[in-house]
């Protein structure tokens, strides 16, 4: 059965991972712009990164039959220096017409600071003015609950439609508020933080399958690019239907992402 991994940072992964994902059924991915593990020292560093996302990675993925899409932004971990972040944001429009760009992301908050919020609002303005989909990063650990609420308020204040926004990294204490306010929600499957595949299936059993997807967010830290197929195994192990497996790992991401005319899951 085919699947989509709608959030994975392939610039941090080896070509072997593309091969293993393809063998597990992955046919399409989306890669949000994120923090490299260190602060880039110049806007030129971001320019090169955006080139990698829009030119290099699609070619690397295509070798394994995987369609590569991306999202562009200054990630919240590099938003505290607001002047620098705005300078970087000025080059984003140069890439918005690239054929694999789906929208703005992953934007959001990290430590819930005023500058992070200001840069989030600037990204939301850009998304609204260019009619882009939005992929949202919510903060880690103790900062997630507060940050998720601040982000949702900022999105409503900006005037974006919640059904064009995916709020990622939800957990048991944030998922219901995200869904209740009309957003799409993503569960990130990590071995230590965020959700394990088992907990993600628990969330599906508790909150249902509407407007929910799951992703590996595989990156340079502890993460597993095969966590989505592992969660599918977990669903089957518990006796859930193939319809449910397909809905969460194929239908739902395809429905949301297809709101961008540039998204192609397969040959259809």
């Amino acid at each position, binding site marked *: 059965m085919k699947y989509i991994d709608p959030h994975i940072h392939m610039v941090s992964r080896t070509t072997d991972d593309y091969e293993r994902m393809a063998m597990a059924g992955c046919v399409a991915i989306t890669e949000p712009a994120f923090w490299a593990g260190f602060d880039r020292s110049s806007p030129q560093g971001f320019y090169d990164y955006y080139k990698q996302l829009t030119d290099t990675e699609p070619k690397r993925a295509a070798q394994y039959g995987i369609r590569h899409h991306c999202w562009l932004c200054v990630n919240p971990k590099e938003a505290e220096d607001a002047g620098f972040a705005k300078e970087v944001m000025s080059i984003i429009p140069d890439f918005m017409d690239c054929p694999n760009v789906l929208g703005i992301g992953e934007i959001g908050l990290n430590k819930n*600071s005023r500058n992070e919020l200001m840069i989030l609002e600037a990204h939301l303005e850009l998304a609204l003015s260019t009619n882009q989909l939005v992929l949202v990063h919510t903060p880690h650990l*103790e*900062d997630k609950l*507060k940050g998720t609420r601040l982000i949702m308020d900022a999105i409503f204040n900006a005037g974006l439609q919640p059904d064009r926004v995916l709020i990622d990294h939800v957990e048991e204490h944030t998922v219901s508020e995200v869904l209740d306010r009309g957003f799409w929600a993503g569960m990130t499957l990590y071995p230590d933080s965020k959700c394990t595949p088992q907990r993600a299936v628990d969330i599906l059993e508790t909150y249902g399958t509407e407007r929910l997807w799951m992703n590996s967010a595989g990156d340079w830290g502890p993460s597993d690019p095969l966590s989505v197929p592992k969660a599918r195994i977990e669903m089957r192990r518990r006796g*859930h239907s193939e319809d449910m497996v397909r809905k969460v790992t194929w239908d739902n991401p395809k429905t949301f992402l297809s709101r961008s005319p540039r998204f192609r899951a397969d040959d259809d």
Partner: protein
Amino acid sequence: MTLESKFMTERNSCPMTAAEIADAYFMEHRAKLIDLAAFLDRVDRASDADDEGLGVDFRITALHECLKILNDGKNDRTRRVLEHLSDHSSEPLQTAPMKGALGAPAPE
């Protein structure tokens, strides 16, 4: 808000029986429980530990508080533990103090 969510499903939403859940997951969680016990024993042997508990890190204190949630007889434990480990303030911080997170709200 969670319990009133319109998305909250009915009981019995996991197709497995309790025995099947135990068969599938008990050993994994037995191991995690013993890991946790060993972790707390390690904290007790810390070089700065004393009988009054001075020197105990705020994260360890938060963890002990979460253990009470696990054993209070109420359901929805995961959400309540995560909420206990969350910052419940609502105003943005003046500046970001660091990039990372600690896992439990730091004392004022």
